[in-house]
């Protein structure tokens, strides 16, 4: 979530769409040379300069948390598979894979004769070591990666090009899980995986890093820059560029200014909607495409919440609130038209898993008023309705980072409409850490309402898991807990037949759309900008620079 938290997911966002393979876009000449592809010539060479407002907090995959750290691992370490712009999972270090009839054994055939950048062999054994190590120290040093090996029993490499993963039960999303695991060089890391594994977290893994992906991280200066050079030993298609750099900015204003003044060739999402017009006017390529994030209105769903706001559990109240949100106005004013009204928690841009039957709720203050009347909340003095003996006045918790972007504007649109139906909303902005803890406080008994966002992964498993009882005090930001929902969650996790899984995933979305722990407000577009001197970076999963794919930087080239 982003939501919540954000960062987490704001950062590790995954998947998604797009764009045309770069090779197709190629044209012409120069720079450091040229290569032919399908009749056109692609310019070789050059350094693509990217700006970001995220950061690399650590180069150790067992410590890192920020999104750019994960993107770095994607480019320097092999992954078994990766996403294409159309969100299809395709080969990367694994060339092919098979599944046993019971869905518990996955056998991957990996690239032969691959090498790490230091010349040592890169084999299936490195992959087996990585998965095994994560499992071995899952309760300690590798806990931050343990989710990727859920239900995995063993990882073995019977030969140099075969990796066998066995699971204790069928797992529906094996490919999207292993896609997120960077395969690390055993010959570098094995020495730290001894004893209780604590050394795995103290090893800093400083640049230059022995790499097996399309790029080598040659230099990293904290809070300033990370430089990636083309890896001549890479097993896959070679990048057209000599390398790329990632410069860290603290504000998007400075980042966009640097792009406009030619100090950068591209900036990572999100480009503020307010910058779109000026960037277009300056002839930059600006792409605004359906995003995988959503903004939400969270209503405390814990049945044990304090009596002073227990009416928030009333389905009529939730329906009324949903009708009182003017989604069209929010998209037009808050997002400046760069977004869509929201409906379900699995955004349409994530692909096949979003239930198209769930539509945005219509804006109607009359309906909202009738629903509140029906619930018995009569209008009291001062224009506020009375529920359970007290005026309907609620505190809305909002994280400061989103408040300073656009969510505050959204609140300013929603608040007066709620006032018209006799409900007072009072904004309380806290920094993300404090805001999240305010939601979790007293085991979800205290908070009333919150506004936040989420960045679901392409596979729906993670977003659906957020609302399970097991996610209490970790990702669950609603206090929602339902045994029936949890059972469906387990069912979809083990449903290896995609059609069958989709049915369950739809059913879960309908449950949430009906229980309304979240009122999904909108889906902000993914907005990216880059120099017109380069081929468009393909967008994968709501961005062209993330941990879902190496295709963007491998395919980009000068025009």
């Amino acid at each position, binding site marked *: 979530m982003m939501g919540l938290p954000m960062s987490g997911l704001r950062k590790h966002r995954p998947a998604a769409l797009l764009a045309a393979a770069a090779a197709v876009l190629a044209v012409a000449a120069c720079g450091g040379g040229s290569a032919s592809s399908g009749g056109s010539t692609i310019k070789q060479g050059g*350094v693509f300069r990217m700006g970001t407002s995220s950061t690399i*907090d650590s180069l150790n995959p067992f410590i890192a948390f920020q999104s750019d750290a994960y993107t770095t691992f994607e480019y320097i370490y092999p992954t078994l598979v990766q996403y294409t712009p159309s969100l299809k999972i395709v080969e990367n270090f694994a060339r092919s894979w098979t599944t046993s009839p019971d869905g518990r054994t996955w056998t991957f055939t990996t690239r032969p004769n691959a090498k790490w950048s230091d010349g040592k062999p890169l084999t299936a054994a490195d992959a087996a070591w990585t998965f095994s190590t994560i499992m071995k120290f899952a309760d300690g040093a590798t806990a931050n990666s343990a989710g990727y090996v859920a239900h995995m029993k063993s990882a073995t490499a019977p030969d140099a090009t075969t990796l066998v993963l066995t699971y204790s039960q069928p797992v529906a999303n094996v490919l999207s899980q292993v896609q997120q695991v960077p395969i690390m060089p055993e010959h570098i890391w094995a020495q730290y995986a001894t004893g209780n594994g604590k050394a795995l977290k103290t090893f800093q893994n400083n640049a230059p890093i022995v790499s097996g992906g399309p790029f080598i991280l040659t230099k990293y200066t*904290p809070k300033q820059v990370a430089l990636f050079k083309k890896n001549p030993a890479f097993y896959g298609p070679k990048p057209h560029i000599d*390398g790329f750099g990632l410069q860290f900015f603290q504000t998007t204003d*400075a980042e966009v200014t640097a792009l406009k003044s030619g100090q950068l060739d591209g900036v990572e999402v999100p480009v503020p909607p307010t910058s779109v017009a000026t960037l277009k006017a300056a002839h930059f390529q600006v792409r605004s495409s359906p995003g995988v994030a959503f903004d939400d209105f969270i209503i405390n769903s814990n049945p044990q919440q304090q009596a002073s706001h227990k009416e928030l559990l009333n389905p009529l109240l939730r329906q009324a609130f949903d009708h009182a949100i003017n989604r069209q106005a929010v998209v037009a004013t808050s997002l400046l038209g760069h977004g869509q009204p929201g409906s379900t928690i699995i955004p349409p841009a994530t692909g096949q898993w979003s239930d198209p039957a769930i539509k945005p709720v219509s804006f109607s203050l009359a309906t909202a008023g009738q629903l509140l009347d029906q619930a018995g909340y009569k209008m009291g003095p001062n224009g506020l309705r009375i529920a359970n003996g007290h005026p309907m006045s609620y505190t809305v918790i909002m994280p400061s980072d989103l408040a300073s972007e656009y969510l505050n504007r959204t609140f300013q649109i929603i608040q007066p409409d709620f006032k018209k139906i006799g409900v007072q909303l009072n904004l309380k902005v806290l920094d993300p850490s404090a805001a999240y803890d305010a939601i979790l406080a007293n085991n979800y008994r205290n908070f009333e309402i919150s506004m936040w966002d989420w960045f679901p992964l392409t596979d729906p498993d*993670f977003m659906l898991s957020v609302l399970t009882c097991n996610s209490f005090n*970790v990702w669950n930001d609603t206090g929602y807990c339902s045994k029936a929902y949890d059972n469906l969650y387990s069912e979809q996790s083990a449903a290896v037949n995609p059609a069958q899984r989709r049915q369950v995933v739809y059913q879960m979305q309908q449950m949430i759309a009906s229980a309304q722990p979240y009122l999904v407000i909108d889906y902000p577009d993914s907005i990216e900008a880059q120099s017109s001197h380069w081929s468009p970076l393909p967008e994968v999963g709501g961005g062209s620079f993330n941990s879902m794919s190496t295709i963007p930087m491998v395919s980009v080239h000068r025009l």
Partner: protein
Amino acid sequence: MRGADYIIKRGFFALVTIYVAITINFFLFRVLPGNAVTDLSRVPHASPALRHALLTEFGLDKPKWEQYLIYLKNLAHGNMGISFANQQPVSHLLLADLKNTIPMVTVGTVAAIVIGVFTGVLSAWRRGSAPDHLSTNTAIFFYAFPTQWLGLMLLILFAGILPAGGMSDPFLFTAEPFWQHLGDIAKHMFLPAATLMLTAFGSYTLVVRSSMLETLGEDYVLTARAKGLPTRRIVWRHAVRNALLPLVTLIALELGFIVGGALLVEVIFSWPGIGLAMYSAIGQRDYPMLQGGFLILTVSVIMLNFVADLLYFRLDPRIST
């Protein structure tokens, strides 16, 4: 011994203040709402077990008083701890940040002092004249600007002319020659240092002007005039020297804050200094980084105050306690 008593007394006060500051540093961040493991435990499919593992790893599951004793013990050994966010020693991280901060903030602060003193003296000397009005009003004008707003305006105004962020050209795969590198840093430093200078020089101008006016009205200045000394000499040799006493305190305080960086300026211009490090650490509730950063800040301010006390003692023989 007037001198020994004074120094011992001031030194004792400085030590007590440092101890109190160290203690406040410990509790201040822990009473903030939010939690050190809130962010770090939110990785996909995280479990409450991961949250607990992190609490244990960072020692946050222990009672506060026990954490406090461990903190004091580590400090006594010169150990500032390990950053929660990236598991590196806080002292190394802060040292790297300080190296980036000090040149930029020093340039900005020294420029502010020089310009402030000069314009303050000029204003007092030409009291009531057009230059006085211009200088005083300009000082108040810039002093009134919020730093972050002025920084953003400069950033937009100089887009394309000066770098928008960072402290050197980041996209160089090979090291550039030393002098070229120095010039590159100077170019990147210009806007942040100028922002600092513009927002700070006003206070110097006003303090110096006010102090100078007081001094220029003293009898000895009248005597100097009566002796027929040139105006320039009266101003710079007789008036300014005596008028600078209040400035010593102001400068000592400002220099102390140099090591704290200029948080807003560093954030706006993405300057990788200690202010930026504190800003990130607050968001992440990285207690060891925050404690370390604030420790350096408080100790420098207190020590420079101590130095200012000593200077006062030296400059003004009337001071004895």
